[in-house]
């Protein structure tokens, strides 16, 4: 019975990884790059773009959260020990970039050059402060190397 439960759990984890997590992991890399290009577009055009970053925070939050909270899916993190540090570092990165894009979008909602410059400076400050805080947090509380030792 226990063995069958194990097999089912592992199968569920493999399916979830191939169907969902694989894409989430890729998007965790490419979404911040896309948001960076959005910032460039806002600066060049002088107009706001859509705030897609918020939707990405939600989507990633849901699927990463499920993968970590459901015990069967959590096995992925033990089989792929790099995955937890990867997710734990890149997800906050997406949040930081999304907030930066939101700030700049807000600044560019009104066509005023001084307002544009002000919000660009605020965005740069937000990026530097957030990244610095992230560095301090991860240097004080290292991301644990998880996995490689579960016998399932």
């Amino acid at each position, binding site marked *: 019975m226990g063995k069958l439960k194990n097999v089912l759990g592992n199968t569920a984890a493999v399916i979830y990884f191939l169907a969902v997590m694989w894409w989430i992991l890729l998007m965790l890399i490419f979404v911040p790059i896309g948001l960076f290009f959005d910032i460039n577009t806002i600066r060049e055009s002088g*107009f*706001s*773009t*859509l705030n897609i970053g*918020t*939707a990405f*925070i*939600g*989507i*990633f*939050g*849901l699927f*990463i*959260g*499920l*993968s*970590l*909270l459901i015990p069967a899916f*959590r096995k992925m*993190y033990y089989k792929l020990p790099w995955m*937890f540090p990867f*997710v*734990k570092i890149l*997800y906050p990165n997406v*949040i930081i970039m999304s907030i930066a894009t939101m700030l700049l979008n807000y600044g*560019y*909602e*009104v*066509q*005023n050059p001084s307002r544009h410059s002000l919000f660009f400076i605020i965005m740069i400050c937000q990026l530097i402060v957030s990244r610095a805080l992230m560095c301090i947090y991860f240097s004080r509380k290292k991301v*644990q*190397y*998880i996995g*490689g*030792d*579960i016998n399932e």
Partner: protein
Amino acid sequence: MNNNFKKSIQNAMNKNSNTPIFDTTKTNNNQEVQIPSSQTEENFMPQEESNLDSGGAQVIQKQSDKNKDKPLKVFGGICVALFVATMVFIFSSTPSVNTTDAAKNALTDKVSTSLAAGTVLLRKDENIGHQDYTITHKYNQNDTKIWVWDYAAEDGDYVQVLVNGAPVAEAFMIKHKPVEITVPAVGEVQIKGIRDGGGGITYAVRYDLNGTNYFNSAPEGEFNTYTLIKE
């Protein structure tokens, strides 16, 4: 028995200072104890103790697995909380489309006195044509307020308000939330389309002086004129 057994294991672990470090687990007294991840808990125990109390070892194994899972569960909880927070944010900032008869009439007539400022009539932008209006009123004051908003999709349309050809405010992005601007009660108020975010620049304007909403659209670079005349 169990407490003594745990203590003896902790003592053995603390003594074993030259153990290779792969993983860390925090103990209850916040002391970091090094546990080699390649070894099981049983390998870690003094041999005679492990033979005596294998049930206790299982308990410790479970405790150790729980400790390993803790950061994953905590981070997972934060992720789900962020998902819920973003959904609340997205859905609270997206007003529902008004499908009442008054809204349907407003779409047909392009004018309404019964709807409130900020009413959303369409989910997507639709070209309903653009029109100029002459508003005759008996308003006593020199200035009046107008509210401008996007009655269709919030897709990054920009407009600018001009009075007698001169801008009264900078061009701004129209959203579902109305923007309030003060204009003279007599003269020509023009709403100029600055940028089309897609599907045409759809906007609505409400005049405080007659309590009427006008649902209109302005092509990029062109404007609609509202001529305000006092009776």
